[in-house]
């Protein structure tokens, strides 16, 4: 029963991810009116990256997040010019979030040079349980360098909307008090030009990140901001 629920949830996350990318593609189509400029969602258009290249880049969110020390954190200004990987999740997540974070921690652990300074931002969407303290403890288990952010639900939803991602859905509490949290599962990669040109679905491995991170730092993205 539990497995079935988890499977359904993962399926939802995958579907939500695809839907979000579809939405980005739709926006791109509508904005450009030219099929060649549409969101690139097939493998040939991903430029050799392990993620999915967007036809229409997204700006860093400017929502009023709070970091794990309780201080305000503006992603757009605090990480400007830096390669930044951003994901939305929750500290009680049993599958996608810990795997994503473990893979990123393992990737960055042995890297040197500029790619080793990649910022990883984890936004806790389960605002009841993802307190700054809980987030810090959770992230420190992977890497003390990971940045933990949270905010009021409406602020998080606004940021998700800005990033063309579906809203968070908090399930009804069960008898034991637990509840399911449905959230986007992609990792958004903001490159030094302060735009997100590419999102990474669940399933990207350490060796793929190691190949992609140096490329993300130096890749000369075509100007598609219109």
């Amino acid at each position, binding site marked *: 029963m*539990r497995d079935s629920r988890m*499977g359904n949830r993962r399926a939802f996350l995958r579907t939500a991810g695809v839907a979000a990318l579809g939405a980005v593609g739709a926006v791109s189509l509508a904005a450009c009116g030219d099929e060649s400029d549409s969101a690139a969602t097939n493998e040939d258009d991903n430029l050799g990256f392990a993620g999915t290249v967007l036809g229409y880049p997204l700006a860093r969110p400017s929502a009023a997040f709070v970091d794990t020390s309780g201080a305000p954190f503006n992603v757009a200004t605090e990480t400007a010019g830096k390669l930044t990987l951003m994901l939305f999740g929750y500290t009680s997540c*049993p*599958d996608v979030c810990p*795997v994503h974070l*473990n893979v990123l921690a*393992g990737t960055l652990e042995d890297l040197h040079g500029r790619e080793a300074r990649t910022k990883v931002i984890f936004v806790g969407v389960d605002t009841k349980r993802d307190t700054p303290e809980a987030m810090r403890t959770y992230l420190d*288990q992977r890497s003390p360098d990971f940045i933990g952010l949270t905010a009021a639900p409406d602020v998080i939803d606004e940021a998700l909307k800005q990033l063309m991602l579906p809203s968070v859905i908090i399930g009804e509490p069960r008898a034991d008090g637990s509840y399911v949290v449905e959230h986007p599962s992609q990792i958004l990669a903001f490159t030094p030009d302060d735009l997100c040109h590419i999102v990474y679905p669940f399933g990207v*491995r*350490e060796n793929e990140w190691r190949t992609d991170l140096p490329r993300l730092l130096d890749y000369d993205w075509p100007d598609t901001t219109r």
Partner: protein
Amino acid sequence: MRFWCSNDGSNWTWAWKPYIGAWVIAAVVALWLWRAGGWRADVPVRRKVALAIGLVLLLGGTDWPLSALGAGYLVSAQMVRQVLIVMIACPLMLYGSPPALGEWLDATPMRRRIVRIITTPLVSLPIAVALLFAVSAPVLVDPLIKTQLGSFALDIAWISAGFLIWLPVQPPTPMVPRLRGPIAIIYLIGVSVAPLPVAFFMTWAPTPIYAVYELAPRVFPTFDAQSDQELAAAIFQVAGGLVIWVQIAVRFVRMAGGGGAAGGPRFRGTMVPSNVSA
């Protein structure tokens, strides 16, 4: 209820989930061994105990929780299974197998020829090691372990490799080993060394080599895939090596005490029924 363990992507739970295939195979083998006289009164107790432990370990290695953990979550659990099945269960079952099996293998020239070929060290060891290499290769493990049939095939390969490795030094009674004394010891040293490249690769690979384990839901939240892989390599080298080196030590002590090649039937280079030299 499922036939065999596989990586189904679900989150780990400690709720008991038996695998029908593991129980059916264990039951069929136990029934056959019983009918073949594996537990007859005249069979030495140590052989009956070895057979029972071998069967229990085979079931333990193919049923929940170890098989579920190994197939879907932790490569270290998979390595524990490999050591249990290949290095412990197989030789114990060969040691405790009833005389009927040895007599059946020795009953016709064709069977004798097959046994002679597969117990030739230069045949058995390369085939067994090739099997173990193959079922450790990510290109095979990652797709196969996602299906029950594929996972079953991997386990059958392990069991086959286990019997191939041990047959030259531990054939079913009443057959005598093809390799005895110092030659058996040299062979076992070869067995302990030959699969080490797999462990070496697992230890020193900079990233997790298996996608299924790298991307599996975590059983222990902070136990990451890289640490799991390094533990698996350690289990392979330490636990697997320990089993073989205990065997080597026991054989060496027996040989030194006159109970090895000199004490038993004369080494003939082929398997012969023990009553020939009795």
